C-alpha cells in the first residue's frame, strides 16, 4: 500500500463516515433526552427515498434535501407519539418503524417510477456535487500535506463539512446552552426537570425532532451525494452501525466524530480487497470483507469501550406525578 492508496482510503473514509456521523448525532440527541431510537435506519431510508424522488421530480437537490428531512420528521413524530405520548416500548417502536420504512420506501418508489423500487439515476442539479476548498490546487504541490489537503480534506459535497462541523456544534448546544442542559437533564432525571416547571414532553419531542432532521440529512446525503439515487435497503445497516458508534463514543459529540470516522474507515477498507490482501499477504473472500464493518462493530462493542454508561432515564417513559 502506497501513499496514494492511503489517501484514497482516507478519502472514502470521509465519504462513508458522513452518513454515520449524521445518524450518530441524531441518536445522540434522542438518547441524551432519554429516548432510545433504533429506528435511525428507517428514518435514513425514508429520507433517502424522499430526497432522491423529489430531487428527481423537481430537478433540485435542495428541494430533495428538504423532502428528505420532512420524511424523516414524519417518522420521528411517529416514534415520539409512541414513545413519549403513549409511553410505548421504545425499542419495539424503533423496530416497527424500520420495517415500515423498508416497505413504504419501496412501495412509493414503485408507485412513482415503476422501476422495481429504485429511483431513476440523478443527474445535473438533482445531484449534490463535490466542492473544492480554496487553495486545493495551489497547495497540492506541497509534499505529503498538499495531496492530503487536496484529496482527503477538499473535494467533498457540502454535507460532509456540515457533518464535521455539527459535532462541535452539538457539543456547544448540549454543554453550553440552557436548552442543552435541560435536554441532558431530561435524559438523566426527568422528574427534576419537571419539578423545575419545564415540560418533559416538550423537551423530548424537541430532541426527537432534531433526530429527525439529522437523519434526514444522513439519508439525503446517501441518496444524492454518496450515490446517485435511491435503491431498496440502500442504508444497509448504517443506522445500527451509527448506534454502535454512539455507544463507542459514550454518548459524547466530539467522541462521536472520531468513532464515526473509525467506523467509516472500516467500511472503506471493506471496499478495497486489494489493499487488505496486500497487508495480510493472503486472499480474503469478498463476503468476509462485506461482513467486516459489522464484525468490527461487535468487537468494538465487546472489548474496547470500557464502561459505557447510557443516560440514566434512557428507554423509560416519564409518568408525571399526580
Amino acid at each position, binding site marked *: 500500500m502506497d501513499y496514494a492508496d492511503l489517501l484514497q482510503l482516507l478519502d472514502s473514509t470521509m465519504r462513508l463516515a458522513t452518513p454515520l456521523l449524521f445518524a450518530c448525532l441524531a441518536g445522540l440527541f434522542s438518547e441524551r433526552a432519554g429516548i432510545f431510537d433504533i429506528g435511525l435506519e428507517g428514518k435514513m431510508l425514508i429520507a433517502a427515498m424522499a430526497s432522491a424522488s423529489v430531487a428527481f421530480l423537481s430537478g433540485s437537490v435542495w428541494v430533495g434535501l428538504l423532502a428528505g428531512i420532512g420524511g424523516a420528521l414524519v417518522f420521528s413524530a411517529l416514534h415520539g407519539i409512541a414513545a413519549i405520548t403513549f409511553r410505548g*416500548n421504545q425499542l419495539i*417502536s424503533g423496530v416497527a418503524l424500520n420495517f415500515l420504512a423498508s416497505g413504504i420506501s419501496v412501495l412509493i418508489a414503485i408507485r412513482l417510477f415503476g422501476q422495481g423500487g429504485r429511483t431513476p439515476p440523478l443527474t445535473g442539479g438533482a445531484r449534490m456535487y463535490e466542492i473544492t476548498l480554496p487553495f486545493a490546487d495551489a497547495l497540492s504541490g506541497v509534499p505529503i500535506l498538499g495531496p492530503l489537503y487536496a484529496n482527503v480534506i477538499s473535494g467533498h459535497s457540502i454535507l460532509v463539512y456540515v457533518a464535521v462541523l455539527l459535532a462541535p456544534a452539538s457539543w456547544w448546544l448540549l454543554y453550553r446552552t440552557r436548552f442543552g442542559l435541560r435536554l441532558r437533564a431530561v435524559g438523566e432525571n426527568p422528574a427534576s426537570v419537571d419539578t423545575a416547571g419545564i415540560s418533559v414532553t416538550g423537551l423530548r419531542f424537541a430532541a426527537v425532532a432534531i433526530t429527525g432532521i439529522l437523519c434526514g440529512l444522513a439519508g439525503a446525503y446517501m441518496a444524492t451525494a454518496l450515490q446517485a439515487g435511491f435503491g431498496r435497503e440502500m442504508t444497509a445497516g448504517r443506522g445500527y452501525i451509527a448506534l454502535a458508534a454512539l455507544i463507542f463514543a459514550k454518548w459524547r459529540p466530539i467522541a462521536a466524530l472520531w468513532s464515526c470516522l473509525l467506523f467509516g474507515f472500516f467500511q472503506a477498507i471493506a471496499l478495497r480487497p486489494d489493499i487488505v490482501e496486500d497487508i495480510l499477504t493472503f486472499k480474503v473472500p469478498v*463476503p468476509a470483507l462485506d461482513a467486516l464493518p*459489522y464484525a468490527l462493530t461487535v468487537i468494538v*462493542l465487546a472489548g474496547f469501550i470500557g464502561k459505557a454508561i447510557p443516560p440514566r432515564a434512557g428507554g423509560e417513559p416519564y409518568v408525571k406525578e399526580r
Partner: protein
Amino acid sequence: MDRLPRWADIALVPLVSLALAAIISALVILSIGQSPREALSVMVDGALMSSSGWGYTLYYATSFIFTGLAVTIAFHAGLFNIGGEGQAQLGGLGVAVALLTVPWPHWSVALLAASLGAAAFGAAWAAIPAYLQAKRGSHIVITTIMFNYIAASLLVYILNDVLRPQGQMDSASARFGDAIRLPTLDLIPGLNLIFSKGVPANVTLFIALAAAWGVWALLWRTRLGYQIRAYGKSEPAARYAGINPTRIIMIVMLLSGGLAGLMAINNVMGEAERLLINSASGAGFIGIAVALMGRNHPIGVVLAAVLFGFLFQGGAELGLWTKIPIELRIVIQGLVILFTGALNYMVERMLVRVFALLRTKGVA
C-alpha cells in the same frame, strides 16, 4: 384509571391493534392507486379458500411459530432478540451439515439429526451476543442485528465456496435426496383427505406445535421458567433472590437461538430440500410481530403465526395477481409491531373509554 376486563385485555387489544393496522394498510393500498377490497379478496382466495392455499399458509405458519417462540422466550427474560433471522439461517446450515455428511436411511432419523443440527447451530449463533451481553454488557439488540448481517455474509461465502457442488451454477448446497424427504400433509393418512394436491406444509408443523407446548411448560411449570420470568420482571429483585443473571441470559438466548434455528427443518429440509441463499427470507423478523401479536404466550404465538402465514401467502398472491408490490407485507408487519408492541397503551386507553361509555349507557 379503569382496568379492562381480562378477556378484553387478552383478546380485544390484539384484535383492535390488528384492525388499526388493517385500516392503515388499506389507506396505503388506496394511496398507491389500488383497491383494498380487491386486495383482500385476492389474499383470502389465495391463502384460505383452497386446501393448497392452506397448505402454504400452514407452511409459513410453521416457520413463524418457531421464530415467534424464539422472540417470546427472550422477551420473558427482558431480552429483545432481533437476531432470529441470522439464527434461522445458521439453523439452515446446521440442517445441511447434518443431512449432507451422513447418508440417513429414513426421514425420521434424518429429521432427528437435522433438528439437532438446526438447533445447535442456531443456538451457537445466539451464544456469542448472549455472552457479550452477560459478561461485557454489549447491548444485545445491536449485537444480534450485527450478527444478522454477518450470518448473511457467512452463508454467501459457504454456499459459494464450500457447500456448492462442482459444476453447479447457482449458490446452493447439493440436494438432500429423495430418501429423506419429509412427509407433507397430503401424504399423512387422514390429513390427505383434506389436502389432495402436494403442499409444502409438512410434519414439522407438529414439531412446532410441540415446541409451543414445551415453551409454555418451561415458562409456567418449571423452576427455571419462574427464574426466567422473575429475571425479566426485575433484574435487581431476581439477583437479590439468588438468581444468576449470566446463567439466565445464556440459557434463554441458547433456547431462543435454538428455536429460531429449528425453523430450518421446515423450510430447508421440508421445502427447499437444499440450502439456498437467504433461506430464512424474513421469517426471523416476522417472529417479532408474531410474538407481540400473540402477547408473548405460546397459544397466542400459534394463532398469530397462522395469521401471519395468511398474510405471507396472501401477500405472495398479491404480487402474482395484482399490481400491489409484495413489499406490502413488510408494511403490514411494521404496522402490527407498532400497534401491538409500542402503541398498546394507546389501544388500551381507547378500549377503556369505550367500556366506560358502554357502562354509563347501560346504567341510563
